[in-house]
């Protein structure tokens, strides 16, 4: 039984007081989520009683640390229904996971045809991507002479699939798009794009940084080749991210970073590599962070991702209604509560019809009411350019948010309009 009051008790920060006696209204989980005691305690306990290096320490603590680290991999694999635990690669964040895949392409070491990229080949992304799913592909295009192309976004904030068959074609090597937009909240429909990618023999990757924390995600059911997500947005720590990839592809890919523990044998002039996942985990990994992520996956599983999704859907509907009643507020993204998550970005005018800059909105919300939102372009500048705006204010909801907090946001926005009226 989903009980938001009980859930809030798990997150110590939610009951803290801000300077000036303000209570905290945290509406910035799309940026980074808060952490429950279950994650904090697991990490503290590991640091206090079990910590050692993993994989290469042959003593009791080494065995305990390695077991905990690998248990975390099992927990993450189970969380996204990975067919094999070896398909779960720990990275430092989603950006690294995306870069890992992007650097597998056009690498002379890669002998597999699917990863060969050169002039004439095409890479497809979309206009609604976070910079982390744009820049690695720009770099790939620059390295190889391939052409970068992208899906447009409709006025309502959906992917424009009208030109799908032209955009994804026989020259396409990979399609990499966001599962849930970090600005619009839009949840993209994967299957039509995937079907076309399969038709033309292209690979497909999803940036699931904003979906895995908020809905049940089953990588097998999605059917794509690679999925990237990050720990700190799913009640886990920062410094740990995940790449899930199909085993057969991971095996065919060249290593990304070279270093300790990613090898099988090393000579002075050459090396052979460890099997996945270790092939892609060079150097001492973020051990305690991975263990914290495992605890986060366990925590969310205990609550139930279907219930998390249902809670956020109800909150999103409530928020869209409440914000819709504020004159001069314009939601950038779907206004209907269908195929969208709890990320709501908007622009705001005062009652005379002048724009109020998001920095001013965010500052007054924080200073006057303790409401934490994100302001700016949210690492999605091209999307803001597409809508002809420099920045937005973004409220992003999570399992611990309440309708009272949305009421507080609405009151705060009315106040902002008065200050800058």
């Amino acid at each position: 039984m989903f009980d938001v009051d009980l859930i809030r008790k798990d997150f110590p920060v939610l009951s803290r007081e801000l300077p000036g006696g303000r209570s905290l209204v945290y509406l910035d989980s799309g940026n980074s989520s808060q952490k429950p005691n279950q994650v904090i305690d697991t990490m503290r306990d590991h640091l206090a009683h079990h910590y050692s290096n993993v994989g290469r320490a042959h003593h009791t603590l080494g065995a305990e640390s390695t077991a905990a680290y690998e248990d975390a991999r099992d927990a993450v694999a189970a969380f996204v229904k990975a067919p094999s635990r070896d398909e779960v690669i720990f990275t430092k964040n989603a950006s690294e996971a995306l870069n890992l895949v992007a650097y597998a392409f056009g690498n002379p070491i890669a002998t597999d045809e699917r990863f060969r990229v050169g002039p004439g080949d095409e890479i497809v992304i979309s206009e609604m991507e976070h910079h982390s799913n744009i820049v690695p592909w720009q770099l790939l295009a620059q390295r190889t002479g391939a052409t970068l192309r992208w899906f447009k976004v409709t006025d309502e904030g959906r992917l424009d699939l009208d030109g799908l068959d032209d955009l994804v074609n026989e020259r396409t090597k990979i399609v990499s798009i966001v599962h849930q937009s970090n600005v619009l909240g839009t949840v993209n429909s994967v299957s039509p794009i995937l079907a076309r990618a399969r038709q033309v023999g292209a690979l497909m990757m999803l940036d699931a940084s904003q979906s895995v924390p908020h809905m049940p995600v089953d990588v097998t059911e999605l059917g794509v080749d690679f999925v990237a997500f990050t720990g700190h947005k799913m009640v886990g720590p920062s410094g740990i991210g995940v790449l899930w990839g199909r085993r057969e592809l991971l095996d065919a890919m060249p290593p990304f970073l070279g270093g300790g523990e990613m090898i099988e044998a090393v000579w002075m002039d050459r090396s052979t590599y460890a099997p996945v996942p270790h092939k892609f985990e060079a150097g001492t990994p973020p051990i305690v962070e991975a263990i914290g992520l495992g605890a986060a996956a366990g925590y969310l599983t205990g609550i139930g991702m279907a219930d998390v999704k249902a809670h956020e859907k109800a909150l999103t509907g409530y928020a869209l209604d409440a914000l819709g009643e504020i004159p001069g507020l314009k939601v950038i993204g779907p206004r209907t509560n269908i195929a969208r998550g709890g990320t709501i970005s908007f622009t705001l005018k005062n009652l005379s019809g002048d724009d109020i800059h998001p920095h001013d909105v965010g500052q007054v919300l924080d200073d006057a009411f303790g409401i934490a939102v994100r302001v700016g372009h949210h690492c999605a500048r091209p999307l803001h350019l597409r809508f002809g705006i420099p920045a937005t204010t973004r409220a992003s909801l999570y399992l611990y948010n309440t309708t009272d907090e949305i009421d507080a946001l609405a009151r705060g926005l009315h106040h902002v309009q008065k200050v800058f009226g």
Partner: protein
Amino acid sequence: MIAESMYQELILEHYKHPQGRGLRDPFDAEVHHVNPTCGDEITLRVKVDEGKVLDVSYEGQGCSISQAAASVLHELATGSTVEESLGVVDEFTRLMQGRGQVEADEDVLGDAVAFAGVAKYPARVKCALLSWMAYKDAVVRSA
């Protein structure tokens, strides 16, 4: 309410009624500065004659802090000497980069002292400094 320490009445007044806004001729130098983290931008022109600042004109978009700072800059710099105005820029920069620990010299800063509260917000310091850095750049280029 902590906001009051940042959004001084004077800042809001300058924001709502910007002084000297709009690009004017003649000018000796024009610069365009942007704040990449938030997209604030300003185009600024200076007209200097024999060490005296005859006009500072500007056009830009951004938050209340960045727009008000440009307006205050216009009032302080126009009519003063280049040397004096650069002294004010230095004092303003010292105040903004002082993390709220610096006591502002009101004799030097005049109305710009109203921005003292901004220094406590690292994310907003660049907003306040945008037009002032653009001015410094323009003056150097006009020489």
